[in-house]
């Protein structure tokens, strides 16, 4: 483990960022000075308002606005850029813009949120043209990425930006010691591994699974897949009450029922998940690169002994899976500069601008452009390389195997309360899994009716 010299720098960027930006700092400085030396666009030049998501990694937040300023300077336009956080206040802000029809020209969103904007008619159709145009540049899109931004009629509503897969984290120091190979081959093996290290008296829980509102997409969307099921079919119709889904639900409940996960995982403080792993309380956890970024920052000792895998398949007709959140860039339906916004997005995604951003993301942002997958970072970095090798092949959009529909997004996307209700009915109120699944199906029907 390398010690960095400046405490400021230490807290500013994660350890891995230090390693990576060390090589890139010249390029980074180049960007900064480029934005300072380039002449500002004339007052009369058009202005684009841009809202991007604030990320977990400070380096990303530092670089992204600089990159946007650089692109603006090159295009000789003005930009007003802002990063909004992923929390309730940030959501209030975005909801207000939506309700008042004042979305910025360019807005970053998850594909589920963007599908909702599309369903409300708030997105500009020009995004499809941009996606089409970009098929022919920089090696085109990565395989399957366009599925992420397809609406119910096969329409493309946004321009893919990056993806963020959910990864199962394993504490190799605990598992290697007792001769258990990670990642395990089947879900049953995973549970066996969890039982083998489970020792609450010593403060070690086998697994950290969330049973609250957050992080459900990485878990409750994936578990039916592992058993050969899914919450919707290819036509976009909800398929809730099936044998496979019930098996997935029961398998998920078992972690709690056996006590393999801390009781507070019912709450949404994150103890079932992030915090459980960060504090060293649980030996297995599933999360996105946000956890890994936090590990690098706060518990580099644990980051060193972490290995990644997808959720292993549970049955013969299931398959390993990693739910993957897609992020895309959207253009507001009423943007006066839609064409310009399209060109702007195209330029942002060029390898020259995008590669340093993905590196700043330290493993939580995966490329959507072929040429970007070829950069040294994704090819040779030991950790990110392992993600590319072991997780990305099993990555599936949240909606798999169907399209992005508003009803599906409302029912399953992150922070939807319906999963929590289903789990708590069983674990707190003592209802049977079958009964609870039935009520979840009823919720699904109600949500579907809302969008008819």
């Amino acid at each position, binding site marked *: 483990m390398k010690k960095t010299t400046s405490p400021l720098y230490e807290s500013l960027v994660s350890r891995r960022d230090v390693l990576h930006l060390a090589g890139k700092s010249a390029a980074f400085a180049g960007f900064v000075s480029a934005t300072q030396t380039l002449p500002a666009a004339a007052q009369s030049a058009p202005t684009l308002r841009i809202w991007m998501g604030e990320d977990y990694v400070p380096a990303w937040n530092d670089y992204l606005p600089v990159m946007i300023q650089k692109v603006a300077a090159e295009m000789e336009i003005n930009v007003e850029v802002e990063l909004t956080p992923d929390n309730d206040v940030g*959501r209030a802000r975005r*909801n207000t813009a*939506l*309700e008042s*029809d004042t979305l910025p020209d360019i807005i970053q969103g998850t594909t589920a949120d963007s599908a*909702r*904007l599309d369903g*409300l008619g*708030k997105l500009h159709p020009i995004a499809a043209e941009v996606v089409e145009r970009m098929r022919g540049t920089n090696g085109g899109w990565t395989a399957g990425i366009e599925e992420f931004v397809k609406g119910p009629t096969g329409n493309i509503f946004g321009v893919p930006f990056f993806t963020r897969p959910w990864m199962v984290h394993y504490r190799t120091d605990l598992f290697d010691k007792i001769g258990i190979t990670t990642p395990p081959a089947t879900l049953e093996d995973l549970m066996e591994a969890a039982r083998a290290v489970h020792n609450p008296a010593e*403060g070690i*829980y086998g697994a950290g699974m969330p049973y*609250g*509102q957050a992080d459900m997409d990485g878990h409750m969307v994936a578990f039916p897949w592992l058993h050969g099921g899914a919450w919707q079919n290819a036509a976009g119709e909800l398929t809730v009450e099936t044998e496979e889904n019930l098996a997935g639900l029961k398998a998920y409940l078992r972690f709690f029922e056996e006590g393999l996960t*801390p*009781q*507070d*995982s*019912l*709450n*949404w*403080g994150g*103890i079932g998940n992030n*915090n*459980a792993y960060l*504090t060293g*309380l649980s030996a297995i956890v599933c999360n996105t690169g946000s956890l890994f970024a936090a590990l690098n920052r706060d518990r580099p000792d644990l980051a060193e002994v972490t290995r990644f895998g997808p959720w292993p398949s549970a049955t013969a007709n299931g398959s390993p899976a990693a739910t993957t959140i897609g992020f895309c860039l959207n253009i507001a339906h009423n943007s006066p500069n839609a064409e310009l916004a399209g060109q702007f997005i195209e330029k942002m995604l060029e390898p020259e601008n995008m590669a340093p951003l993905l590196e700043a993301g330290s493993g939580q942002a995966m490329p959507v452009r072929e040429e970007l997958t070829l950069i040294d970072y994704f090819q040779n970095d030991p950790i990110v390389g392992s993600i590319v090798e072991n997780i990305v092949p099993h990555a599936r959009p949240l909606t798999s195997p169907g399209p992005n529909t*508003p009803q599906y*997004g*409302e*029912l399953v996307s992150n922070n*939807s*309360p*319906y999963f*929590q209700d289903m789990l*708590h*009915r069983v*674990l*707190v*109120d003592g209802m049977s899994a079958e009964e609870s699944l039935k009520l979840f199906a009823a919720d699904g029907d109600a*949500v579907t009716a*809302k969008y008819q």
Partner: protein
Amino acid sequence: MRSATSQKSHLAPAVSSGDLRKIAKRNETLTGYAFLMPAILVLGFILLIPFVQACILSFYDKPIGGEASYVGLHNYVATLTDPKFATAVGNTVVFVVFSIAFKIVIGMSVALALTAEFPGRGLARVAVLIPWALPEISAILSWVWMLDGNVGALNSILRKLGLVTTNIYFLSDRDWALPTVTAINIWRGFPFFTLTLLAALQTVDGKLYEAAELDGANAWHKFWYITLPSIMPVLLVTTLLSTIWTTNSFTTIFVLTGGGPSDITTTVPIYTYDEAFKGYGNLGRAASVAVITLPFIIAMIVFLMRVMRKREEME
């Protein structure tokens, strides 16, 4: 105000002729309106329009950013027949009653204790207000961390003191969750009582106590017959305000438990929030919850005004 007027006429018999009284009354009315005008203008402007809009919205299905479609009384029927709503109302009553009772007792006791002379009193008076001064979000978040069943400081302390042998899951246990969120609400809310009552205690006439002592009154008598009646108007307003705030209190429970586990700590504001923003939201449904609870809050306000007026008349 009846009392003031009558006192005035006693004090100034010279202005009691009919015409003059009429002029005085008209003047008083004009002054009254003039003094109230700024408040009425500002509040009418920022309150009335959203209020009327929300009332109208309660008859519509209205996803955020989507078209509103008229659904008649459907939102009201859906809310009133939702067993979750009944649970939320029940939880709210328990939460509010216990919160307020403890806030009054603790807030009053601390205020009385802080009127006594002792070294460091100034510091203590400020320190006791801190729970209420801290930014709510981070104060509550640090409680989440301290109350954690596995890695929390409180469990660690209780274990070290030998008070518990197994961890207490304050926020996810069926039996602990509601008492815990209530306790945190009391922790945050009692300083407000201390602050207002401390200020009110300063207006109590010291001579009354001296007179009472001469009559051989004990501490309890003095509190019951002198202190309490003197600070009653302030205590009433404070209690009512705090009751309304506690009834509307959202952030504390939202951050601590989000209303869980299951619906055990779901209060009406949490329920309203869920309805407004659950999935992609339905503002109309949430507005219907607010309209349904409206009469209860209005009843509380009317009750307060009655009591206030009675007290003023007794003066």
